[in-house]
């Protein structure tokens, strides 16, 4: 693991958060007094069945909507809570969306260079150069000048993650990013994500419905459900999951080496 000179940041404190949505038959409580912490630079996986409020939490962190009560702090600063029910959307908390939000009308390179250019941090030329080296680093050299529509789904996810990391955000919010991928590609993505995180340790707030993925990737796994899941604390389960994941990953690596890329 490369040591970073900068102090670890991105510690999240979620306390007593409540969020209800207006529904057809009255309001629906999406998040009910949820509290947990995420350490700075950690990978936190949030698991749960559909409709259990995990996306709501992510959206609140991103500032896409507010919370009804409770508070969220990042590195000790109030993000949203009493006095400010909705966080500001900002480049310190970037979201990677479930169905992908790479701009289809820009090439992968232009997509990745987007953030520093619009924030005025870099000139266009510098941003493009930097983006190119980032993509090459991630093994995506062939896709640099392609449009997202011409790129394979696995590569698209990696481009989107690269785009999100260009300006070193404090927190990276991932909304079921690998949901639409097949098991082999997923496995390669997991490796890629861990590698990326090792290079740039932002806090990863990671939503998934895949328990195995959550356990494999997460330093911390948060389960949102109506019943306690005793299973996850069982060491044998965790060992089994990691064993299976390693086997699948071997297969994936072999498949990719044969050059069987699916478009």
């Amino acid at each position, binding site marked *: 693991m490369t040591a970073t000179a900068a102090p670890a940041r991105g510690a999240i404190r979620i306390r007593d958060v409540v969020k209800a949505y207006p529904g057809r038959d009255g309001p629906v409580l999406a998040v009910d007094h949820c509290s947990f912490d995420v350490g700075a630079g950690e990978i936190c996986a949030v698991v749960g069945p559909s409709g259990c409020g995990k996306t709501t939490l992510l959206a609140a962190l991103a500032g896409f909507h507010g919370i009804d009560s409770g508070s969220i702090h990042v590195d000790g600063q109030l993000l949203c809570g009493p006095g400010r029910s909705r966080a500001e959307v900002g480049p310190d908390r970037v979201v990677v969306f479930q169905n992908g939000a790479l701009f289809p*009308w820009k090439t992968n390179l232009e997509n990745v260079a*987007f953030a520093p250019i*619009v924030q005025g941090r870099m000139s266009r030329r510098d941003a493009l150069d930097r983006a190119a080296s980032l993509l090459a680093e991630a093994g995506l050299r062939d896709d640099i000048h392609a449009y*997202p529509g011409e790129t394979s789904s696995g590569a698209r996810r990696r481009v989107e993650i690269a785009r999100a990391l260009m300006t070193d955000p404090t927190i990276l919010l991932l909304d079921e990013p690998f949901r639409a991928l097949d098991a082999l590609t997923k496995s390669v993505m997991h490796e890629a994500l861990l590698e990326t995180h090792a290079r740039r340790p932002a806090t990863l707030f990671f939503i998934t419905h895949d328990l195995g993925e959550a356990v494999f990737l997460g330093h911390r796994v948060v389960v949102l459900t109506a019943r306690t899941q005793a299973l996850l604390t069982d060491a044998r389960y965790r060992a089994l999951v990691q064993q299976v994941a390693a086997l699948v990953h071997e297969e994936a690596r072999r498949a990719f080496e044969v050059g069987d890329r*699916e478009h």
Partner: protein
Amino acid sequence: MPDASSPEPARAPLGLPDTAPEWLWHAAAWLRGPAPYRMAIGYALALGSWYLTVDLLALPRFEDLPGVADVFREWTSERPSFGLSLHTPVYYEHILTSLRRVGLAFALATGLGVPVGLLLGASPRFRDYVFPVLEVLRPIPILAWVPLAIIIFDGAESPVVFLTFLASFFATALNAQLGVRSIEPEYLLAARCLGASRASVFWHVILPGALPSIFTGLELSVGVAWFSLVAAEMVSGQFGLGYVINTSFTMVQYPTIIIGMLTLGFVGHATSAAVRLTGRLLMGWRARTLRLEGA
């Protein structure tokens, strides 16, 4: 179902070298399919039934109509009896006059309609002020504006161009607005996450994202422009294809009516195709994406 395993369709069976350009391959494939023959049958049937009912059998209702032979002869003759054919310069003057009017009106409508439409979609405040006015004016048929246009504007050209502009403007603005509102919200959210200001979001996301809808609107707008132009020319104009059709009728020069109509068909198609082609050039990314999905 698109075949995921081979993105490049095989070219060898068509007898073309691998280096042949894309469009040639598409043309060759089309020629080999049933499409061209069915199309030929369709045209033959249409012309044939026209010939049959008018020239040959002279059926009761049909006998007053100009026949295929008359029209064809008139259109291609060097000395047309009614003064209008492919060989007469006045024919092209009429075409150019109509084209000029449509072009001007279309340019004005696009120049005004696209920004207005984009703002209608992107700024709720702008929409609150402007949309109620547009929505009340829109249901009024364009041709109902004719007398008012003649009253307001001097001369014979301005009312015609104004009416054409009006029709195009509504089509363009509405489609641009639709384009903005049909942009997936994730793109907007992603842009803001990445630190884009409102202006940046507009230039980098809203404008390119709405462009496909804008071009659909522009194609529609061209069609609507021809519609209004012809009507306006028929009612109050000098020169132009609508005028040709109208005067041919009053002066009992029936074959020229058909010539005018068919010319309108061709020119209309040409202008729509021009808009479509421009769209394809500006939105290269679309062509490449769609192709991959096996379209």
